[in-house]
């Protein structure tokens, strides 16, 4: 074993001396023959608003950040933690965390990456002057004084993060948080190069100015057309990086993108055209993939006065939930491997076990029978019908699901008025509780159940249905300090199901097409975080 290690190291060292590093023909570990062309091209749904780690607030920019920058920790193909700029990390009480940074980490201009770079970036994320739409993430991480810095009540320098020396970063939290290291994977916590940011202001991310510390550097871009990244020779792990160039193409239209994928113009696309997955899977089984993705699809119930009064009655909410035949939605409407949901947290969340929710074990007939009885008990039915406003953001899938569900509710004497709004209007309407039922989805910001469950606490600003239960609030506060919070999470899920706080519908899958010559794609990563430094292209046979 030790011998192989030495041999591998020697081999790698030798390879590192011969440039270009990957001119050889086989993969150093698996021995697969490598293609001569090691470029990776993919489709981007939209133009990213920014690639400044502290300003990014959506997935397209997030994917780019993972190639351009490297945080303290990153992820292996299965989503487990892996050292990034930090080689080691530790905490005795889960409240004060120490990260030891590697000495060979470099910015693309050759400067060393130091603990001070992280302090600068994190303060920058929290500083209201930066106006980062992801400032809340810093608060969520429980770093000392985060909330008061974000609110403008404390100076950013008071944030609980400091550079002990160039290679040591110390983070102090307001309360113990066992999963804090997981949270440092997120782009908001990636470092930024202070001299560059200060010299160029908002234009520091332009190809001519940008300095980054990831496996790739920004080479060229045209807004709404493409972005191209090249290998970063200064990256500490550059010798292990095989893909030499990454190109992302902005293609809004999903059908057009799929045609171009089939014509071989690029290697990967997600956000497939609605309803296309079953056909793709049948025609190209080695190209079409469906893997779990950390998002849950559900209907938000308006618990406030502005919602329909019947929705205040737990029996009505329960009846509505029981009537939804989730199997029809996953197997007949979506048909892409989604899992029916009877509870909120996605089943594939790390260290999370799906709790036993009673009604998930019944047959649909049993559920419907119960629903009818509950509705009658509550005094509603065909003689005393309910009319509900169901809103969703414009999308073919959401429309189909809303139509199907409104049909499922009909036997209860519930009629639904469907309204769709484009995204920005929709957010405002939902945020102001101008609905009875609202289509919603929540994606985990880190791979831990609290990323879902916190949403339904009274204090959470994104709790658009305004569900409130003191017990849930207290349990979620308690969970933070537990070394094994799973029992608490199960209990919370059970309370949510008893209260029918939301109507869970399904757990997402990530559906995408990938050129079969691309290998080592992280299909096990439920957060859909991919790092191109780990993938490679094999020679076509």
């Amino acid at each position, binding site marked *: 074993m030790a011998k192989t290690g030495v041999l591998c190291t020697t081999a790698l060292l030798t390879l590192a001396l011969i440039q270009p590093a990957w001119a050889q023909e086989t993969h150093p570990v698996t021995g697969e023959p490598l293609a001569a062309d090691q470029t990776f091209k993919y489709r981007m749904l*939209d*133009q990213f*608003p*920014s*690639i*400044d780690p502290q*300003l990014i*607030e959506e997935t397209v920019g997030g994917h780019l950040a993972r190639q351009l920058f490297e945080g303290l920790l990153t992820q292996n193909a299965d989503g487990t933690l892996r050292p990034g700029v930090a080689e080691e990390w530790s905490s005795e009480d889960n409240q004060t965390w120490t990260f030891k940074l590697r000495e060979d980490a470099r910015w693309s201009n050759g400067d060393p990456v130091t603990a001070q770079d992280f302090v600068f970036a994190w303060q920058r994320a929290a500083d*209201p*002057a930066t*106006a*980062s*739409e*992801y*400032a*809340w*993430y810093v*608060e969520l991480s429980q770093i000392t004084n985060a909330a008061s810095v*974000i*609110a*403008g009540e404390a100076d950013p320098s008071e944030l609980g993060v400091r550079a002990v020396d160039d290679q040591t970063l110390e983070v102090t939290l307001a309360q113990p948080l066992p999963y804090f290291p997981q949270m440092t994977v997120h782009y908001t916590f990636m470092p930024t190069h202070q001299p560059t940011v200060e010299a160029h202001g*908002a*234009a*520091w*991310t*332009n190809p001519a100015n940008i300095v980054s510390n990831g496996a790739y550097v920004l080479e060229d871009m*045209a*807004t*709404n*057309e*493409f972005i191209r990244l090249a290998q970063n020779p200064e990256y500490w792990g550059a010798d292990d990086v095989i893909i030499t160039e990454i190109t992302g*193409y*902005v*293609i*809004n*239209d999903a*059908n*057009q993108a799929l*045609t*171009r994928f*089939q*014509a071989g*113009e690029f290697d990967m696309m997600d956000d497939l055209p609605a309803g296309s997955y079953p056909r793709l899977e049948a025609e190209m089984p080695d190209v079409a993939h469906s893997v779990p993705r950390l998002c849950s699809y559900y209907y938000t119930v308006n618990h406030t006065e502005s919602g329909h009064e019947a929705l205040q009655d737990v029996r009505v909410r329960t009846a509505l939930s029981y009537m939804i035949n989730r199997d029809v939605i996953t197997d007949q409407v979506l048909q892409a491997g989604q899992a029916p949901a009877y509870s909120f947290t996605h089943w594939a969340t790390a260290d999370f076990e799906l709790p036993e929710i009673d009604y998930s074990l019944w047959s649909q007939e049993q559920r419907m029978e119960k629903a009818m009885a509950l509705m009658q008990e509550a005094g509603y039915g065909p003689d005393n019908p309910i009319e509900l406003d169901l809103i969703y953001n414009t999308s073919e899938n959401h429309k189909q699901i809303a139509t199907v569900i409104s049909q499922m509710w009909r036997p209860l004497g519930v009629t639904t008025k469907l309204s769709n709004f*484009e*995204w*920005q*209007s929709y*957010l*405002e*309407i939902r*945020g102001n509780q101008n609905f009875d039922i609202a289509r919603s989805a929540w994606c985990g*910001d880190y791979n831990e159940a609290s990323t879902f469950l916190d949403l339904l606490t009274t204090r959470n*600003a*994104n709790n658009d249905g305004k569900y409130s239960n003191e017990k849930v609030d207290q349990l979620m506060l308690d969970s933070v300090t537990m070394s094994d919070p799973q029992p608490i999470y199960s209990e919370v899920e059970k309370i949510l199901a008893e209260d029918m706080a939301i109507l869970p519908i399904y757990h997402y899958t990530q559906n995408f097409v990938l050129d079969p010559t691309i290998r080592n794609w992280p299909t096990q990563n439920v957060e859909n975080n991919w790092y191109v430094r780990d993938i490679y292209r094999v020679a076509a046979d």
Partner: protein
Amino acid sequence: MFVYILKRLLVAIPVLLILIVFTFVLMYAAPGSPFASERGVPPAVLANLQAQYGLDQPFHVQIWRYLVALLTEFDFGPSFIYRDQDVNSLIAQGFPVTLTYGFWSFVVAVLVGGALGILAAVRHNTWLDYLAVGVSIGAQVLPNFVLAPILVLTFTLWLGWLPGGGWQGGQWQFVVLPVIALSTSFMASIARISRASMLEVLTSNYIRTARAKGLPMRHVIFRHALKPALLPVISYLGPAFVGMITGSVVIDIYFSTGGIGQFFVASALNRDYGVMMGITILLGALTIFFNLLVDVLYAWIDPKIRY
């Protein structure tokens, strides 16, 4: 003539001003905000964002500031969504793209459409006429959002001749499909208009006279019939040219050219007030300018028209 042009330009100023104010009002009346996000933005951050973009000011201050920056520095302000860029630089990136494929579409539409129309009129009621009319009606009823995917399917997926999108600085392979998709319906309209007007001219008395004198047909058509026959075509070309060089949302979205049409739609959906205003003003100004140009051309071609 000079006075006329001056007068028209002076009228253009209030028209543009009204356009700006009207768009501004409509934009603010629309629900949603550029900073709305599914993850709630902390209040202090939101306040800072609004202050950064001047949204914390009363409406009249906002519009006044906007106008001042626009008129004194020709500055369209920042983009509310693309936070690393301003509107001037976005237009500088997108407009040349649109201008390029718009210009070539115009050239193709005029040459092919004009030739088809004139040919059909000269060979009235022959198979050539029927063919030209058939082609132009076919092209007219095929909207570009149908044509674009068909072109990509054919030339990219099946034949593999041309890329299905992108721009890459305007290399010819990337320009061909957008130009075909954009020019087709304009070409059809030009063909129909020029055919109809040519037919009318050809039956007029002075053409009969010319032919009676024994002039060769070629001479009659090019020397005497063409210029008057072009008048209705030219009145159509003004708006058509603006329509083409200001791009098409469909072309930009289907071919991912990075042209301004795509910015236009995206800005409306994202509530990117800066970009939305900038492009509206640009398109408004271009429309006014080309309408004026058409009127001037009209006077030049038709001696009967005097301003």
